[in-house]
Structure formats: structure tokens, C-alpha cells
């Protein structure tokens, strides 16, 4: 699963995921269960909360996809 991210990064992520000790990944989203490893692998958030939970990784994915990270358009209710 971590092969695409490089062996070193894979070990670090796996280490963090075992930190909780209850079998559940320590770095996961509380709403959708997406893990840091999944975000590192494909850059795809599982829900809106993931954007806050994995800010660094997702911002990098946004920048890769769009070349920028700041919204300048409309907002709900404005």
C-alpha cells in the first residue's frame, strides 16, 4: 500500500497509524475514516472534514492539481 510513496515514508506513516494501539489508525478522519496513508497515496479526501484533518497533504494535492490554493469566488449565503 505504501510502495508508491517510497519505503521511508511508508514506514513513518505505518508507525503513526499504529500509535493508538487499538487497531484503528491514529491519523484518520473521524467522519469518514480516511487515513493519512490513503491521503498520502492518492491525495483524495473522503469528506469535507478531511480538508482540515490532513491540511498539509491536501494543500499539496490542491497545488499540484490547480497551481494555486486560495479561493477568490463566491461563498454560501453571501
Amino acid at each position: 500500500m505504501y510502495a508508491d510513496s517510497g519505503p521511508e515514508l511508508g514506514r513513518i506513516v505505518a508507525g503513526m497509524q499504529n500509535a493508538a494501539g487499538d487497531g484503528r489508525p491514529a491519523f484518520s478522519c473521524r467522519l469518514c475514516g480516511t487515513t493519512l496513508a490513503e491521503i498520502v497515496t492518492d491525495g483524495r479526501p473522503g469528506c469535507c472534514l478531511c480538508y482540515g484533518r490532513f491540511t498539509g497533504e491536501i494543500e499539496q494535492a490542491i497545488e499540484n492539481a490547480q497551481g494555486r490554493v486560495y479561493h477568490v469566488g463566491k461563498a454560501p449565503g453571501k
Partner: protein
Amino acid sequence: MMDRVDRVPEWVTGSGPDAGIVISTRARLARSLAGYPFPRRASEEELAAVAREVRAASSELTARFPELRSLSMGRLDEDQRTYLLDIHIASVEHISGGEGRVVILEPNAVLSIMVNEEDHLRVQSLMSGLVPEEAWDLVDWADDVLAQRLEYGFSDRYGYLTSSVSNVGTGLRISAMMHLAGMAAASRLGGQLRAAYDLGVSIRGLFGEGTRSIGDLFQVSNEVTLGLSEREIVERVRSVAQYLLDQERVARRELLADQRRSLVENATRALHKLRHSRAITAYQAISMMSPLRLAAESGLVEDCPRGALNECLVGMRAGLGEDGRSGMERAEFLRRKLATAHIEGY
């Protein structure tokens, strides 16, 4: 609300501005509900809950669109589901889904909402001709109405939060489907396509991402959704589409002046093939329709209205590839639709 789709979509009529070259304009807004996993990670119960919320919120849209109806994929038969694909309202993935996958649609298909496709909502407008401003105004209005009842996922930094980071920000994709047969015939397309990429506008084949052009049909759409305002996105797509439109007009005028005979011959061959094949693939048929459409728009084909040509595009079931309709059924359908078309000297 009825579980039926029975009217010819507005874009098929071909009545919009410059619809001889720009078959349709689409505006699409991707929106998510804050409290639910995105559809690919959601349970059937969560998908059903999202569908309920969106249906309830969309009832506010009936003030302007009283015939708005909600169609659940799980309750439509195969023909009805495929029709939604053919009229470019739903995707292959969406029509293959179950009860929680819904399309909310007004009968002319000018306004629709795909619920639980890649995002919880895809609010879409689809209109005949080159009308990016009108298409945007309509989805903007629908979005404001829906936002009064729905809690959208939104961040001040990233904008509207979507299931793919490539749609985050405005969530807006404006696209124009263009028939660029004149430029293709004059081999002028390559340079123009490269120039469009430099403006942040992409040009793809008939069925969007990852597809190549068939029948000289191209989708012109904004590449990024973040860091530009909605108006800026609309203007960029408008300016590239308008430029291509003007170039296509010039190419067609020159073809008509210098190569009238070859235009007629190509269209005659295409019409013969479309009308006399025992069986025909979607790829062959769409390819053959390009010279016929080009000649018809140049006034060289009688009794072959634009609407009939668009109906051919819809009815040949191209969206599902060769699985959509058997080659013999497709040939029979095209024979019927093109029965009265007539080319000088044919």
C-alpha cells in the same frame, strides 16, 4: 414528481445563438454537504439521507421550474437511465448506481442536479448555443436557493470542498461543445488548441475527460476551478470559444468558396452510408455525421434541420459505446431520422 423523461431537451433543438457551431453550453457546480462522507465513501443509508436533503431543498426551485422532477436511478428502467446519459445529463457511473443516485431535472433539461455522483451535488445547466453567461447565471441562482436549506462544505481558504481536489474552489466547470469541422478540414486546429491550453482552457473529445475527438466535436472548458472568480472563468471560456467560433466561421466560408464540390461529395458519401448501412457503430456514425452537419450548416443539404442532426447524436446511444444500441438498431434509427435529407445532385 414523475419517474419519466419524455421531452426533447432544449439543447437538442439547436435554437440558441451560434448553435450551428456551438452545439451546447454547460455550467456545472460541484457541491458537498458538510456532514456526510463523499459518495464514494458513503454507505447506502448516507447516500439516501443526502438524496432526501437535496430533494427537500430543491423544492424551493419549483417557484421558477414548476415541473421539476426527481428520478432515482434504482427506479428507472434501462432505457430511461440510458436516455439521461444520451442527453448528457448523467454519467455512466451515475446511471449504474442504485436508489441513492438521483437526478433532479426540469423537463427541458436546462436545469438539473446529479445527486451522489462524484460529489453530493452537481448542479448543471445545459443550453443550446454559446451562452456561458446565461448558463452560469442559472446555476448561480439555483446554488443560492439550495444553499438556504443545505449546509455546504466550504472553507474560506479553499472555497467549496469537493470530492476531487481538481474541482475545489468555485467548483465551477463551464464547457462548450463545438463542431469544428471547418478548422479540422483546413488542418488549422493544432495551433489553436495549443493556444487555448496557455489560457487555462482545455479542449477534449465528445465525452469529456480522457476521450479523444470523434466527428470533429470538441468540449472547450476551464482547466482550473480555484484562484479565479466565477465571472473570470466564464469570461475565459467565452473568449476561447468565441475565438474558435470566429476561426471556424472563416474556415467554413473559405471551404464553401474554394471546395464546395468536395464539401458536397463528402456529405453525399456520408449521407449514403448513414442511410444505407445495415449496421453501423456509434464511432462510424458520429464520424459520418460531421461532413453532413458541415454541409447542412453551409446550406447544401435540404430537409436536414439542425434539431434532427442533434436528435441523431442523442439517439444513437453513443455514451455507452458499442453496448448502447446494436449496430442494426442504430442504422435503422438513423435511416428514419435522415429519411428526408437531400443533397443537390444526390
